[in-house]
């Protein structure tokens, strides 16, 4: 929609809005939006709380092309109410994934540009249901052969229902700024105390939930620099081949997670986990540039496993 510096190939993914990410990710002028803002499919609930609605309820969905291949795309706007799952925004995501699941003539690749703190508290029940329906739809779509790729690198990260949804995808790409987890840092601090997790310690937060540690633990399949071009490249690579989702994969995943718990359960921070994983100088990871980090992660067994 906008041709400006914010959507150019070197523009920051982290800083961009959902619409700018869609424009920067897809081939130029290939995006066709479903339920566009002028249709005003917005939240019917926010008015009760005297809160402003958004014309797209914070989710942009549609179809387009990535390096010439037809894709469905959905982008959460992390700046609008934390990119939250609610009745309308959730239904848009669920509808898109179900369309790919049910119609072989539609794009069989879905790119989910996650940027969300989880469920919108003002629409809690609808939001929780939306997350459950979306996860179910993703699993069914994957079983039907659809590739569902999560791209995580926004300000809100992917927390709560967004973290769960991300984990359900065929493949996950994350940038250093991106964070993937269920309970957010402040939630943990509030419930367990500052001794357990200090949410104001940004280095701690990012080393625990951030892109680098997720990639090293195998919780993400690819690492992207914070730019439109990097996410374009990584999405192209990931969607070219996705693992089959079947019972064997699920069993392997359970075994792997149990082994990870055993191996890393005693660690109390990210650096000690990286050391156990066999990284020679784990304290250098934090400042390592993207190129060296990508090479390191790609060389490790733990990071590259179809059973995530």
């Amino acid at each position, binding site marked *: *929609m906008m041709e400006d510096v914010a959507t150019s190939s070197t523009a920051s993914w982290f800083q961009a809005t959902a619409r700018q990410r869609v424009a920067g990710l897809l081939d130029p002028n290939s995006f066709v939006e479903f339920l566009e803002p002028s249709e005003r499919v917005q939240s019917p609930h926010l008015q009760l709380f005297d*809160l*402003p*609605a*958004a*014309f797209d309820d914070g989710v942009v969905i549609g179809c387009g092309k990535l390096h010439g291949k037809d894709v469905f795309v959905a982008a959460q706007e992390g*700046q*609008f109410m934390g990119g939250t799952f609610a009745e309308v925004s959730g239904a848009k995501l669920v509808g898109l994934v179900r369309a790919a699941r049910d119609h072989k003539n539609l794009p069989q690749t879905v790119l989910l540009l996650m940027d969300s703190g989880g469920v919108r508290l003002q629409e809690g029940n609808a939001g929780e249901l939306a997350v459950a329906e979306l996860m179910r739809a993703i699993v069914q779509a994957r079983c039907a052969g659809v590739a569902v790729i999560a791209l995580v690198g926004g300000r809100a990260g992917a927390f709560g229902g967004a973290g769960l949804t991300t984990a359900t995808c065929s493949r996950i790409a994350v940038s250093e700024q991106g964070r993937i987890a269920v309970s957010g840092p402040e939630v943990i601090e509030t419930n367990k105390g500052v001794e357990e997790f200090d949410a104001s310690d940004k280095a701690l937060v990012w080393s625990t939930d951030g892109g680098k540690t997720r990639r090293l633990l195998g919780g993400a399949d690819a690492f992207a620099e914070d730019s439109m071009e990097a996410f374009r490249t990584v999405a192209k690579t990931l969607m070219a081949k996705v693992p089959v989702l079947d019972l064997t994969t699920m069993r392997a995943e359970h075994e792997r997670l149990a082994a990870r718990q055993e191996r890393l359960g005693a660690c109390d921070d990210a650096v000690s986990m990286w050391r156990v994983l066999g990284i020679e100088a784990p304290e250098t990871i934090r400042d390592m540039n993207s190129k060296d980090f990508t090479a390191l992660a790609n060389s490790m067994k733990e990071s590259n496993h179809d059973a995530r």
Partner: protein
Amino acid sequence: MQTLNFRHTASRRLPGKKDKAIIGVVASGNLEVLLERVLPEAACEVVIATPIRGYDETWKAVVADFVERCSPGGLRISINDGGARPDTVYLRLVQGSSLMETK
């Protein structure tokens, strides 16, 4: 929520062929502006939904300034406000109108 509605007669139709555009995000100190070319040549309507009450005169002045400068004839402009300052509102209106002018 407060809803404000301003009608203006612009000096000319806004050039360009684009029939709709959106700019900005509903976030703290920000706003989204949806522009639609649905009105007769010189007519312009601005509809604002804002959770911050009591700034009617400020909105009125910013919108009047914008219409004077950009002459957005033919546009219906709808705003969801997240508590943006007048300079941000003006910036988004001008950005939106220039998006509509692209071919």
